[in-house]
């Protein structure tokens, strides 16, 4: 018998693997117990990626929370993620801010840097350039607070590494559409 030639992948998802995009989704949900577990469980159960996730109540009287998820995948996978989220009963609305375009995204980070002498001066100089604020200081350390897009924060952290980076706490991305209208 002839050895069979290797077929193309039987899975369509393997076809567009190079076609990975990063999208930011805004999800309005009922603020009830377990709703975050439903969202996160959907991502893990179906093998989707979460790059970052933030959640907080945004309308107390209506019990509404807003979840901002940054995810990556092929355009088809990201379309699926939106539909799968919409299937969850406590979800009001799913908006793909990346697809819509024109959204602002911000993340807050707290960055602890330790060092003495010239390192301290350099850290402060760079913090000033990045408009990071000092929110705690000791003889041999600073904690900086920095708000910005993900790239800016990544860059600042990279710069702090040789100076004496100790640890980082990041909130993940919050995002909102530009202009007068809600999502």
């Amino acid at each position: 018998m002839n050895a069979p030639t290797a077929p193309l992948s039987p899975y369509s998802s393997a076809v567009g693997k190079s076609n990975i995009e990063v999208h930011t989704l805004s999800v309005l949900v009922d603020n009830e117990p377990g709703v975050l577990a439903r969202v996160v469980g959907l991502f893990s159960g179906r093998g989707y990626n979460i790059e970052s996730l933030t959640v907080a109540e945004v309308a107390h009287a209506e019990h509404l929370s807003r979840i901002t998820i940054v995810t990556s995948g092929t355009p088809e996978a990201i379309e699926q993620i939106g539909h799968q989220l919409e299937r969850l009963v406590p979800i009001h609305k799913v908006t793909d801010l990346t697809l819509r375009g024109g959204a602002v995204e911000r993340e807050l980070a707290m960055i602890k840097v330790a060092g003495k002498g010239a390192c301290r001066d350099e850290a402060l100089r760079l913090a000033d350039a990045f408009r990071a604020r000092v929110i705690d200081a000791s003889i041999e350390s600073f904690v900086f607070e920095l708000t910005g897009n993900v790239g800016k924060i990544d860059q600042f952290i990279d710069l702090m590494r040789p100076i004496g980076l100790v640890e980082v706490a990041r909130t993940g991305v919050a995002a909102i559409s530009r202009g007068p209208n809600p999502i």
Partner: protein
Amino acid sequence: MSNLLTGAEMVVRALQDQGVDTIFGYPGGAVLPIYDALFHQDQIKHVLVRHEQGAAHAAEGFARSSGKVGVLLVTSGPGATNAITGLTDALMDSIPLVCITGQVPTHLIGSDAFQECDTVGITRHCTKHNYLVRQIDDLARILHEAFYVAQNGRPGPVVIDIPKDVQFAIGAYSGPHKIEHKTYKPKLEGDADKIAQAVALMAGAKRPIFYTGGGIINSGLEASLLLRELVGLTGFPVTSTLMGLGAYPASGENWLGMLGMHGTFEANNAMHDCDLMIAIGARFDDRITGRLDAFSPGSKKIHVDIDPSSINKNVKVDLGIIGDCAHVLRQMIDLFRAKKISIESAALARWWTQIDKWRARKSLSFKASNEVIKPQYAVQRLYELTKGRDAYITTEVGQHQMWAAQHYHFEEPNRWMTSGGLGTMGYGLPAAIGAQMAHPGALVIDIAGEASILMNMQELSTAAQYRLPVKIFILNNEYMGMVRQWQELLHGGRYSESYSEALPDFVKLAEAYGAHGIRCSDPAKLDEAILEMIDTPRTVMFDCIVDKTENCLPMIPSGKAHNEMILPDQDDDIGTVIDASGKMLV
């Protein structure tokens, strides 16, 4: 109008107000108050199963054969975890269930109390939605909302977890009202312009096919009638998934038989070569599509589904229409009629000529025998001898299931109950019990395998208790036949653990349960034995000894396309047809 009730009384009252007449369940510590409330009424009949998995499958069988919501009542901890397989089965096959579970009292939640488990945590992934009722004030609303969620949109199972103190607490009950759910509002009508595009595509199609699924059954009887009307109007061929059998009658002249892994040659080749595929209430499951990158390469695809996430999930379609099958079919028919649209009849005639050539291949044929009962022959005889008796058929999972789908022919929807998506061995007997409860006078038959039936054999005791005349027709080949077939396909015929050792004597086992047992191994005596089974007004277990080596064909081997089927006359060397990447698939 509202009045004061205990939580347990509210549960029973809400079930009554929802029109529930039958529930399946098993008592335990954390649901005793609800069982006490049941004791004080006679409107709802409770069926005591022997294992909570049986309750879930029985509720599924009840739901699928009646079009109503199936209800089960189980206790906390093991009661809930035993129901998980049935809930997952219902989720995969879109069956509306409401599962009420008891829970330890709220002040003990999280303390690892006796028979405590995190029911809402565990069932989050295997339900459409679930609720933990923390206070009595929420209970009535949640009970009615659960019925709404279970049956609206794409149906599915819903769990309501009720702590024991909430069952004792007293609160105000409010009855069901028209629910305007704040977030869950499925779309029923299809977009008018998409309907128009779909009809235009159908009018211009030269090689069209309807590919229909369980969504048509779920949509209700009207959807099946409308499908028949649209098929009649267009003259297009129609095939169906396992779950959709009965929506279009098997005796209809446009019927190609089931498609997919064990579908007919004509259905699969027509899917492969069509120029227009109209998928209605089907979800392009891997058992249907075969190798995805070779799936129906030359066709435009229309996909009608109530669940937006079904569209473009596995197969990219050209026109996705979100809506309920019955609504969309009605819209299509209305447009066909209103615009007096004509189809490409000359091209369609050529298409039928091609289809007839595929049909002539007789892909469901098998080598007849006078020595041994062929399993296909057994199903054929069962069909012929039960024809016209309004039979309801359930199955377990495996070869017998596929033979039943191939050789038992369905004229009506809701007559065929099988575990499609999850493939749950042990589904058929409890599902038959559920179907028999919904249709007390009907002939209900579980077509089973000798391995599957042992998975929920305890439910024979339930059938005996309620004097349910269900028939269990076991195709006994002493193997987990589908496992054995795949071991031939993939693993050189090394039958690792697939032989059914130490089988019980099914006739004596039936008698031990108070049922009637029949055994037959002679093709010449089969008809007589089947008639004895049908005519016995009690639970019957029929041990039909069949050919031990028969394989279920035709078959699209894993990793292959629709036009690469193994046909019954090519089964001599099935160990060589699947290549390395196909072996990786399930």
